């Protein structure tokens, strides 16, 4: 048996805890059965399942690595012979084994009710849904804690709560999406119920499509945990899995062109342009997410610069961060879109995309630049505030002063002449990139001149 899983079983599954959990749940279902029809045991089981597996389980999953770091046992684990896969599943399912035990009891009640009322297929669908939502929530919490571990954050109680919240938000998103097609009817949910989902010009059964989507995203989240664990164990990841994820996301999101209004910002009507725009926007969003989350390691960037100078492209490729690949993907798709739009005689739309790429580069540069300034822990916060000022505050002031033409300085904007907006965006991007490279280079000189004891 996986040693990490076994260790967690030693800690989590004491006979006393098992008996207590079983007794409490049985009493809760019994009380629900006695209280009347509003609170059926199955409804109670659903709510308790969410509490035990999603709310409590995300906390345990987040603590599975953070707890080791706090208790100073993480280095010992990192020096073990356990592979990243063993460590990931040993932690994810080991730390939450007690939650899954309670969840399994709830599932028995839920499935018994669902099968009795809606049939075996509905029961099976419910089983998949509840397991997947638990997996998504717990793996999202573990992933966020692993990312924080890579960023060498302090792991206070508040931060652990933040990782737990990320898991819960992921579960809420999955819950909302699933409620579009839940055969059992909606408890909440904000998306419009539907029976069919149009995707890549085809209509798919909503339940099958959404359940498959959720399972795929649960799989990607688990894979994300595995890859983050590899980095913690000092195993290089290489670019291929992230590139595969980008390809998946690009194809997946691009298929939803039918959901978009046909008079959007880029003012084009053909499906190819819309799909390229959707994929490019997805890559841009992933760039922002990853540049915010990933450790912006100045030493790594300096090392990449020195490897670039030696033309060691293979070593650089194996050390690329997610935001770098996402940004490149956004540029490749963006350039394809520009070419397509120019061929379609849609120059204003092409200019809009061009300025979008410029501003993307500028914003990424701001994240890296602010990390090189004094007070590195405040770098990400300072970058977010700067972007808020650039995208919200400054445009509001400019607009209030009647300087509509000045908006091209802040974000992609239709401009006259057409080339003005991309020209301004790229001028800003080049300026920020120059400053960033300069800071990194001066940091390298400073580090080399500052000995250890200083």
């Amino acid at each position, binding site marked *: 048996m996986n040693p990490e899983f076994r260790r967690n079983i*030693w800690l989590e599954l004491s006979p006393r805890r098992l008996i207590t959990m079983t007794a409490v749940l049985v009493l809760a279902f019994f009380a629900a059965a006695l209280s009347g029809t509003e609170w059926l045991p199955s409804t109670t089981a659903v709510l308790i399942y969410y509490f035990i597996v999603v709310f409590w389980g995300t906390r345990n999953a987040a603590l599975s690595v953070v707890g080791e770091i706090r208790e100073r046992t993480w280095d010992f684990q990192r020096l073990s012979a356990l*592979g990243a896969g063993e460590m990931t599943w040993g932690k994810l399912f080991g730390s939450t084994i007690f939650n899954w035990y309670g969840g399994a009891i709830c599932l028995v009640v839920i499935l018994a009710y669902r099968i009795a009322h809606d049939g075996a297929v509905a029961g099976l669908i419910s089983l998949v849904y509840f397991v997947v939502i638990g997996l998504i929530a717990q793996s999202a919490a573990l992933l966020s804690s692993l990312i924080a571990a890579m960023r060498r954050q302090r792991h206070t109680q508040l931060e652990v709560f933040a990782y737990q919240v990320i898991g819960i938000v992921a579960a809420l998103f999955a819950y909302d999406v699933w409620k579009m097609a839940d055969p059992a009817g909606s408890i909440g949910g904000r998306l419009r119920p539907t029976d069919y989902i149009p995707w890549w010009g085809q209509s798919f059964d909503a339940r099958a499509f959404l359940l498959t989507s959720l399972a795929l995203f649960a799989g990607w989240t688990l894979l994300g945990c595995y890859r983050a664990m590899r980095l913690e164990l000092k195993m290089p990841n290489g670019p291929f899995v992230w590139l595969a994820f980008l390809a998946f996301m690009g194809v997946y999101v691009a298929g939803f062109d039918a959901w978009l209004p046909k008079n959007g910002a880029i003012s084009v009507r053909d499906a190819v342009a819309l799909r390229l725009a959707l994929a490019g926007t997805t890559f841009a969003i992933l760039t922002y997410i990853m540049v915010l989350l990933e450790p912006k390691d100045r030493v790594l960037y300096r090392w990449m610069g020195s490897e670039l100078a030696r033309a060691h492209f293979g070593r650089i490729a194996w050390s690329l961060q997610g935001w770098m690949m996402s940004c490149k993907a956004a540029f490749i798709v963006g350039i394809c879109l520009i070419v397509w739009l120019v061929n379609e005689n849609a120059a204003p739309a092409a200019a809009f995309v061009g300025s979008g790429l410029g501003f993307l580069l500028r914003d990424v540069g701001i994240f890296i630049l602010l990390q090189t300034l004094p007070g590195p822990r405040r770098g990400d916060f300072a970058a977010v505030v700067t972007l808020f000022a650039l995208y919200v505050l400054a445009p509001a002031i400019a607009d209030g002063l009647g300087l509509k033409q000045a908006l091209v300085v802040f974000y992609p904007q239709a401009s006259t002449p057409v080339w003005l907006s991309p020209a301004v965006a790229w001028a800003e991007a080049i300026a920020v990139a120059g400053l960033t490279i300069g800071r990194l280079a001066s940091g390298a000189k400073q580090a080399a001149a500052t*000995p250890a004891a200083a």
Partner: protein
Amino acid sequence: MIEVRDLVYEYPNKRALDGVSLTVAPKTITALVGPNGAGKTTLLRCLAALEPPYSGSVTIDGLDTREAPRRIHERLGYLPDFYGLYDELTVRRVLTYAAWSHGLAPALASAAVEKAAARVALVGRLETKAGELSRGLRQRLAIGQAIVHEPKVVLLDEPAAGLDPQARRDLSTLLLQLRDAGMTLVVSSHILAELEDYCSTMIIVDDGHVVGGKPIKVRDDERPRYLLELAAARSDLKQFLLAAGIDVIETGDHHGLFTFTRNPSARAKLIRDLVKAGFDVASFAESTRAIEDTYFAQVRDKAS
């Protein structure tokens, strides 16, 4: 067993290790010493493949830390300066988990646990929870979990910190046993006196460099260090010793520190020659402060 070549390690604002090169022979105990912030812990973490080098290379048992970190981890035992234990688990389970997680099959793990517990003198406490152990016993358990899988290389960062004199003596004995069992040990410590008992080689790290450029042999069982003390000052002691073909480490008007054969006849002859030459010999004995003497001699050289 350990090869470090031109190792550079950088933090964002400073270079922690700057061109460190060293070799550690197998089945030896090497002391890693230096002032606070010199880079000792960083060097140990680079040796443990926990930190990748900025440039240069670290090779453990023929494996590069950048290319095969997990295979190195299989061969390594590491005790960090601040370590934790699974307080809710018994000593047996802590050691069993350590054995399993280092790849020992369950059939072999049980024997390995018993052996490690015997080595760190915890056999009588196998069913005690780790959280109920005293500081000294916790230290033993931490070392036990670092060696339960019989690693080829053991890295210990300040292993004697906070231990009482008896526990330190026990630790010295244990480390010598591990060396005799074929392990290669690197021990970082501030307390030079405690390293005297078991270290044969010393690496002094200061300002991210290895002082003197290489490990220094501080103990040679064939040719130990001897301290000669004179009752009356003589400025020609160094010339006399050099003329006698002796490897002089340090001399003053009242003393001389040098390496010399352990052969009793040769030592008796040297004393006779010294007395015949008019030296007022007050004492002639093996130096028990080899590491301390060498450390301060090296630091003085660097300062001058």
